[in-house]
């Protein structure tokens, strides 16, 4: 997969294999998943349910929900997860993003 990234790691950590939309990707083991995907050159984490426009990490602290990805069938915040070997990450294409009815 594309690896050109505008983000740079200060120290290179050992990699493990994960998949993003079925494609193999090597990310630093145990790293923050959102940070690891940014370093891997991933910019679009999901598309919005309203206008299908791309979004990526915005707050990195679990409050904006722009970095939602699907893991094991559940929409999760990538910035609140750690990389582990075999993680299957799916980018949300549509209205599967949970809505909080308040």
């Amino acid at each position, binding site marked *: 997969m594309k690896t050109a990234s*505008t*983000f*740079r*790691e*200060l*120290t290179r950590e050992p990699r493990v294999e994960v998949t993003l939309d079925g494609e193999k990707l090597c990310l630093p083991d145990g*790293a*923050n998943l959102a*940070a*690891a995907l*940014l*370093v891997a050159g991933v*910019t*679009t*984490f999901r598309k*919005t349910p*309203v*206008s299908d*426009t*791309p*979004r*990526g*990490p*915005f*707050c*990195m*602290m*679990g*409050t*904006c*929900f*722009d970095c*939602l990805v699907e893991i094991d069938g*559940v*929409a999760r915040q990538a910035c*609140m997860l*750690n990389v582990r070997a075999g993680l299957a990450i799916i980018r949300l294409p549509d209205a599967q*993003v*949970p*809505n*909080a*009815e*308040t």
Partner: protein
Amino acid sequence: MQKPDLVIVGAGPAGMAAANQAAELGLKVCILDEQSNPGGQIYRDVDRVAPIRGDALGADYTYGTRLTDKLHHANIVHMSGATVWAIEKGFCVSYTQNGRGAQIIADHILLATGALERPMPIPGWTLPGVMTAGAGQILLKQSGVVAQNAVLVGSGPLLYLIACQMLRAGSAPKALIETQTGADTRAALRHLPRALQGWPYLVKGLKMLAAIRRAGVPRYQGTASVSITGTDHVEAVHFMHKGRTKSISCDTVFMHHGVVPNTQAARSLGIAHHWHNAQQAFVPKLDEWGHSDFAGVFIAGDSAGIGGAKTAEAYGKLTALKIAEMTGRLTVGERDRKASPIQRSLSHELAARPFLDTAYPPFNAALTPSDNTLICRCEEVTAGDIRRYTKLGCTGPNQAKAFGRAGMGPCQGRYCGLTVTTLIAKETGQSPDTTGYYRIRPPLKPVTLGEIAAMDITTDESPQ
């Protein structure tokens, strides 16, 4: 676990200081924190990171280990990776940890949930590659990841701090596009005499500005009409500077114009809040000890009103002293004797704040954005939509939900609430207090049915 005397939500400076003070006075404390390591955002992951990147991040960051060290107290249970999603009367706190729901009961609750970046809705702020300055710092702190070809936009000392941290990490930002004006600086001068009592903060600021100048990073001050463009990703920032239009190409934008209290948990309990004009945000109504109008619920740190890390630490300790007195561990006299040096330190910590707040006000164009600017990131509602709802009779944020779903997406209004209140207040001519804010209800964070089904309910009330 044994029923604690105090449950603290959040392991940042306020939560950690309160835990330590309470534990030393004999209270059993449980801290629930959603991050995997203590520190909050300001000292994020400091135990692991201080030895490897402490030099680039600076002494104000590595100081955090002094607070994390004190969590290893026999009276403190620190639950990491624990996301609180409901707090109910009693108090019963529901949270998820390791994929399982759980509940904990306590007589006293301290909400130390910190701050959020003030929403900065300008055209293009939802593009991938546009992040908060706080996010830029978190990337650097926790992950050792630095943005190259980045531009910093907005106002406030945090922009200088992240610029300096990026310089030390070997990736100078391309430019600082600053929205504060010369008039703001002049207006701030009347607060300078008091700010001099907090001179260490001013010296740090001057040092940061000197480092940015030495590195040759251009600073554009008093900028207006700031917008961000790109197709699938940020490509450039455009702005007016000294009457001319400028554009700077970049791959990342870190934006910031202050932080605001994270009030979600407090609001879910119905705690009264009021509009703080200087901070342009809602803050909870509290007494001098951080006690809210909901008996037993305390709030300390930035979630009680923005004061910064050292102030948060002081208020955390004061809260713990009050709870120790309420539970009979301290007499009123002992409480006050322990509190007085902390209260004295607060006046020094807060001395520079009026100066800084006036010199670096929020970017006005992002408080009341242009009509076609998205203000609700989740449901993609524009400022013009909110104005239109108001003309149709919408009088407050909760009605705005019914008109067009603003605040009903996954972030639950965290990044549009203040903008919606401000826009409606401006249109109706009512105060922000009268206009009000979203009603916040649990779950405060998403929880799956599986996590609830896995819940081990072992409260006193549960049937045997």
